């Protein structure tokens, strides 16, 4: 008995390929799923750009109003040659990515409710690959949004780097940061299980994450207890790395990258472990 693909010759309908359980095949499958889920994200952005424009409003306001006013106030001392607006821009870029990524927990609950998640989990895609794919999809969406934020910053006179390697580095950091926060959000979704609950938790953690990072001000001006929190906040490392790459701010880039990459791997693991709890609810 042979199977024929609908509308195709019978020879096209063959036994499904067997899966080799070796590390190379697993890595190839992981890469394939990341590419696929990023492709889906790009297709969605292409079909509906409304979110791209509406999400640009908030960072534009931060840069245009908050940034401009605080630049004139000189409330936060800056080294010679760097304006507060330039200092702020990478922080707002990271904030913009954070707000996008935090939405992924709500999205995965919606996918659970709509049956999409169940169907994805019945494909030959390991849980960790599914979560990693979604995490990188969040990174892709943040990159597209990040371009808008950087254009606004450049229009406001911020001198950003034109070094292609540094720009690529900034893209990598932005993707890593978004992946971490998307997985954090999906992990919380695996605990909260309901959209309403997650929205409340999301709102409760987003602004504290932002204000306890170095997005708005250098950590040395924070009280001691807040400095300790800031050091444990991955957003600080993301902002510092972006700042170092985009405006040449002194930072320990390797440390920022290692912390961010480690936090991302940990959050992917956590979200993947909690995924069955969410899916089978």
């Amino acid at each position, binding site marked *: 008995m042979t*199977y024929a*693909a*609908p509308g*195709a010759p019978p020879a096209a309908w063959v036994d*499904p390929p067997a*899966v080799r359980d070796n590390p190379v095949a697993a890595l190839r499958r992981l890469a394939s799923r990341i590419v696929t889920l990023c492709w889906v994200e790009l297709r969605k952005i292409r079909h509906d750009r409304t979110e791209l424009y509406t999400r640009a409003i908030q960072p534009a306001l931060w840069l245009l109003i908050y940034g401009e006013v605080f630049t004139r106030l000189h409330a936060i001392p800056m080294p010679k040659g760097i304006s507060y607006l330039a200092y702020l821009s990478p922080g707002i870029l990271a904030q913009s990515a954070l707000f996008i990524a935090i939405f992924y927990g709500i999205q995965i609950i919606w996918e659970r409710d709509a049956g999409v998640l*169940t169907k994805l989990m019945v494909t030959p895609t390991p849980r960790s690959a599914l979560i990693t794919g979604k995490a990188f999809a969040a990174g892709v969406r943040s990159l597209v949004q990040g371009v808008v934020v950087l254009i606004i910053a450049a229009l406001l006179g911020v001198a950003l780097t034109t070094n292609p390697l540094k720009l690529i580095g900034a893209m990598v950091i932005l993707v890593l940061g978004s992946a971490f926060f998307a997985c954090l959000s999906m992990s919380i979704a695996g605990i909260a299980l309901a959209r309403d609950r997650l929205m409340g938790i999301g709102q409760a953690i987003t602004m504290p994450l932002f204000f306890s990072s170095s997005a708005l001000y250098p950590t040395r001006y924070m009280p001691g207890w807040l400095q300790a929190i800031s050091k444990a906040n991955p957003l600080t490392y993301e902002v510092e790395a972006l700042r170092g790459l985009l405006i040449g701010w002194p930072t320990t880039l390797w440390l920022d990258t290692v912390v961010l990459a480690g936090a991302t791997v940990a959050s992917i693991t956590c979200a993947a472990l909690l995924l*069955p709890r969410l899916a089978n609810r």
Partner: protein
Amino acid sequence: MTAGAAELAPEGTTTYAVRCLDLSYRFGTHTAVDHVDLDIAPGEMFGLLGPNGAGKTTTIRMLTTLLKPMTGTVRVFGIDAAARPMQVRRVIGYVPQMLSADANLTGLENVELFARLFDVPRKTRASRVAGALGAMGLTEAAGRLAGTYSGGMIRRLELAQALVNAPRLLVLDEPTVGLDPIARGDVWEYIAKLRADHQMTVLMTTHYMDEADAYCDRVSLMHRGTIRATGRPADLRAGLFDGATLDDVFRHYTGDTLDKGQEEGGIRDVRRARRTARRLG
């Protein structure tokens, strides 16, 4: 030879497409599936019937590798679903009860997504996707966003998604719930055609007894986690009295009417069915 190929019995040589032995699953103190035995022959259209809360979806979830059985085993074409979930997923096409097509992607993109997730090679991917869409009568609508499709078209799109992997077993969880009678007939016509064209094994759950009677080779009546009767619909009816319906058979074996049984479904079952019906509009 790979592990997957070694375990996958050649077509025509397996006695059972699906074999469940002593299958049980509990949610806390509630036993959802209670020592169920179930055999489905290759090429058979098999119906798992029962009201909400009977244990149909939990059984399907164990069969599709979403849940690990607490006791017993599930084998799909000879492959142990708990031990080799990836291999089982490669031979299954699954359509969940809830609407799972992504409204923000076109019909073509929805099917291509699953072609990618099932590792359909790039060379044959476009023809496979076009073939699956063509088989479901969606070629002309392929470029439109799925959000603009009618309820019946979305169900057919989901069938196309499930088909793109050339599955040997098609699992349909309440495939016509929420559809109007014309769309229900339309969907069944396509399922019957698929089965006739490709000798595919079909396992479906439903609480529409008339549909099971008309389209299934054999059915199992499930109630409160156990299977009360299995057989050909005509035999089950004839064994009761002249002119008996499947509803009468169900009442005979369970002591309950299907309508009363429906009320026993948890709030999640009811909410899920209502959500699907609402989205199908």
